[in-house]
């Protein structure tokens, strides 16, 4: 009943409260939405308290840093793998599933900031790995850089249903990824393995036409299967895995229509696993300001997906399908 309680992925972090607090648009805190009394569901140190202690101002926002390209490898004509040098702190901040950064060619303006999922993070040596598909203006310009890029981050809302990832352990999990969505899948698999889960990974080349994450996950004791998931064989394979292995959690990396079809299949089989999906909305500022990632939910409310964590089921009932 009542307002939907929303959780901001930044709540409690060094970037909270943010600009949204200054304009009474905080995702989580009722006081910082201009209301008079507490009505939130945030279980950490009070966001309003942090705001007042900070002199009624938002905290520092993310900085733009220069990052050296250590290695740039063309997986094929359309797809590139980058190894970037970052601080160990930033690498550590980017090791959880859903982490993303904005990248840009240093020779162009901030309009060209393009959000990129972190594929892997090496916190011991300070590297992150990014895979991107050359697709539009932003990625074409980015691809012109060979020595350095500008990087803004860390951001965290690249997967939806993060809580499900955190709370699943000692279970059978099915990880499905297609095309460029293989990239955010690596950190998901690593998280599930850290929580002692039994993980089956089904990968589909998709329109990238390449499997490029095997070397990142092959030492992890996971069962990797390659298949075209749009073929009848692929569909059968997914159905079989879902039915036979008592799967507790399903991760779906791929386009929204791909996610929606798989969700329908799971529903049709009368299974009730926890669902985690890649967040496919177009991010532009990543700060909840520009509104490019806004979606409307079933109840008519509008949320910004660059920061808001929301149950996958609620999302699919609304506008994402």
């Amino acid at each position, binding site marked *: 009943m009542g307002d939907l309680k929303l959780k901001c992925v930044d709540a409690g972090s060094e970037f909270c409260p943010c600009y949204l607090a200054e304009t009474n648009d905080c995702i989580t805190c009722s006081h910082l939405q201009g209301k008079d*009394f507490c*009505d939130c569901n945030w*279980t950490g140190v*009070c*966001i309003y*308290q942090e705001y007042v202690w900070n002199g009624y101002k938002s905290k520092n926002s993310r900085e733009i840093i220069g990052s050296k390209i250590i290695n740039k490898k063309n997986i094929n004509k359309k797809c590139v793998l980058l190894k970037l040098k970052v601080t160990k702190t930033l690498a550590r901040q980017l090791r959880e599933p859903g982490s993303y950064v904005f990248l840009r060619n240093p020779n162009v303006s901030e309009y060209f900031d393009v959000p990129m999922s972190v594929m892997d993070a090496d916190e011991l040596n300070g590297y992150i790995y990014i895979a991107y598909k050359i697709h539009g203006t932003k990625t074409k310009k980015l691809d012109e850089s060979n020595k350095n890029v500008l990087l803004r981050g860390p951001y965290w809302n690249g997967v939806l249903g993060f809580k499900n990832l955190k709370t699943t352990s000692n279970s059978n999990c099915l990880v499905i990824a297609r095309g460029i969505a293989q990239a955010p899948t690596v950190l998901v698999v690593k998280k599930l393995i850290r929580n002692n889960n039994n993980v089956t990974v089904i990968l589909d080349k998709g329109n990238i036409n390449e499997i490029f994450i095997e070397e990142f996950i092959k030492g992890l004791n996971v069962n990797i299967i390659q298949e075209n998931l749009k073929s009848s064989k692929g569909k059968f394979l997914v159905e079989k895995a879902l039915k036979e292995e008592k799967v507790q959690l399903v991760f779906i990396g791929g386009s929204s229509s791909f996610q929606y079809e798989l969700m329908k299949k799971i529903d049709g089989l009368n299974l009730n696993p926890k669902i985690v999906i890649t967040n496919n909305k177009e991010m532009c500022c990543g700060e909840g300001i520009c509104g490019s990632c806004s979606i409307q939910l079933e109840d008519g409310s509008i949320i910004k997906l660059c920061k808001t964590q929301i149950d996958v089921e609620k999302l699919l009932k609304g506008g994402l399908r």
Partner: protein
Amino acid sequence: MTRVIVIGGGWSGCAAAIAATKAGAEVILLEKTDMLLGLGNVGGIMRNNGRYTAAEENIYLGGGELFQITDAVSRHTNVNFPGHKHASLYDVTKVEPRVRRLLNELEIDVRLMVRAVDVEKEENSIKGIILSDNKKIEGDVFIETTGSTGPMGNCLKYGNGCSMCILRCPSFGPRISISKRAGIEDILGQRGDESYGAFSGSCKLNKDSLSKEIQNKLNEKGVVVLPVPKEDVKLDKLDLKVCQQYALKEFAENVVILDTGHAKLMTPFYPLEKLRKIKGLENARYEDPYSGGKGNSVRYLSIAPRNNNMKVLGIDNLLCAGEKSGLFVGHTEAIVTGTLAGHNSVRLSLGMPLLELPRNIAIGDLIAYANERIKTKEGLKKRYTFAGSEYFERMKKQGLYTIDKEKIQKRIDRMNLLNIYNEKLL
């Protein structure tokens, strides 16, 4: 069987759970922290002034269990301090485990560290309570005893910030108004200047940090009164307080300390440097709230509109008690309203008329009087307690105040209400 869900494990929630169980319900009690009794873990004052009458009334009505415990663990009985007579001071370090054992013996399903965040409603009925982990608990009747204290944003906006009280919001999550979630607007208490909420009325010092002389006196007599240096006397501070029964001039000119296991300092907060100027308190430190030198929890920002039988207006199967049900102060007030709500939860499920206590007993009169007054502008600025202030004056005037147990028993008997809470309805 009727399933009753009690939300909030403070004194009123425990009382409601016991009464509903005795009337025949299966009861689940949800508590967000790891302890029952909430702010009762740092309270302790019972049986002062009219609370004596109310406690005895509740015992004769059949709701004596919790008073037996507070009596049994009292460190001192029959203590007098300014404005107050015949108080009992229960030992805050002993009371919670005793209550928990009692609830276990009654086979009440107590779920600790379980926080209610929302309701599922169908027309005007609540079907279930949604927990913070998204699980749902279904029931037939619900009793909200979530109190009105905090959470942190309220303590900041209407107080001096989180003072780290026993409720420990950063650890266990915010209080959420269940009635508001169900679509019923909260009523807000005010201070004299019409600002919202009020501070909790006392803070607790670590007894070992006080001088040996004060410790001995506390252990022996239960109370110590120490004069405040003239330059530090502030009468306007009294207006901040929840507990208007302690908002007397004596409490501004002196510090009054009671022995509840901790040394209970009868003021909402007191700057530590000033406190240490008082003889015997040179090494004092706070026990609860940890930042008692700076502030205290803020209360009365979440009251549900209700009938005199404790049913929330506008929801068919929700009752309330304790601070959630009015501008009440104190454990006794929580227990007596909780007991009535618990008993009535079973009546409600059976379609029986709900019990409304008559106004010629103190409990019935307080419940009805507070409900009348909360509808007025002036009434929102008052607090209602058997222990003092406006209501105790009324009690005396109406001839309701007495410490004669036989007289109280006769009074209850005459209404044909003796042991009514012991009746099994199901």
